[in-house]
């Protein structure tokens, strides 16, 4: 149908994929902590760590060429990391979907069991 070659993005080594995974997860975690901020939460330390672990490699990569960086370059690298992260997760989709399909087979044939909690409440 169509093709999408990861190697044209210049990411080829196995260690780089682990780094991409780390940046991707920390980026998502930082967004999660920011948008779910509430008075009962103390996310300052996890947020600082996840921001360092996500923005640090992006900054290092953008400064690799000439020691200078700009917002456009950082956004470009953030796009590279997130799109590669999502791409690899989508590549796992057939395996995940096989597992989910098996679970749906079990659910389709399942009959509800008696809940012991109800009996406990009655007594």
């Amino acid at each position, binding site marked *: *149908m*169509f*093709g*999408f070659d*990861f190697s*044209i*993005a*210049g990411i080829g080594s*196995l260690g780089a*994929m*682990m*780094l*991409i*995974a*780390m940046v*991707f*997860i*920390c980026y*998502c*975690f930082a*967004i*999660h902590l920011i*948008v*779910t901020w*509430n008075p009962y939460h*103390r996310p*300052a*330390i*996890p947020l600082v*760590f*996840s921001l360092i*672990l996500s923005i640090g490699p992006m900054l290092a*990569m953008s400064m690799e060429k000439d020691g200078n960086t700009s917002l456009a*370059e950082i*956004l*470009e690298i*953030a*796009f*590279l990391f997130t*799109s590669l992260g*999502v*791409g*690899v*997760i*989508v*590549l*796992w*989709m*057939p395996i995940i*979907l096989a597992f*989910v*399909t098996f679970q*749906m087979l079990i*659910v*389709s044939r*399942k*009959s509800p069991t008696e809940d012991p*909690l*109800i009996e406990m*409440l009655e007594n």
Partner: protein
Amino acid sequence: MVFWVNQALLSFTLLIAACSMWRMGPAFKRSKFAGPIALLGLAGLIFLPEQPLYFESDYHRCEFVSFCNDDGRESYLKVVTWSLISISTALIGCYTIIRGSRIYAERNPPVLAIGWFLLGISWWSISQSKWFEEAYTRLDVLAWMVCFIFGIAGTLYLLFRIIRFTENVTPKDPPIEPLNENERRLVTEMIRRNLGGGS
């Protein structure tokens, strides 16, 4: 005009934010903004702006990402559109199967059949994709996929340790009083109504 790479990044960020807001708070009080933000993110991912031509004033050539040229935009758009179709049919199919099974109510065979049909569409769309065919026949891509999982596992462990550290340094609240008789009856009644069908 917004550069399509920046719009794609912003839209993905909005989607992550919407998912987080959707799961925030107790089940009966979810954020009202999650749905609109998710729709905005999806629209931003699908309706990407055109790549400006080289003679236009806002022409932007990527310095690092070699695929953000015009062809790259088309490939990216196809992968995103295809992934959204496959994932959404799978999710709606699973939801329909669960609603049609005997978990929450009596078994409903037509609803179950619709759910399995949608799940079948998801499998069909995957089987039609040459992207997966290429990925699953290349050893280097398989190695990247495995390394990516190791990277996720390592990062989650690191974040788990950081959260444990934060919890340890956070001053603990004093122990709360046990429930009184009224509160105990209220909790019992809530559980009975939720599990016992309101009887």
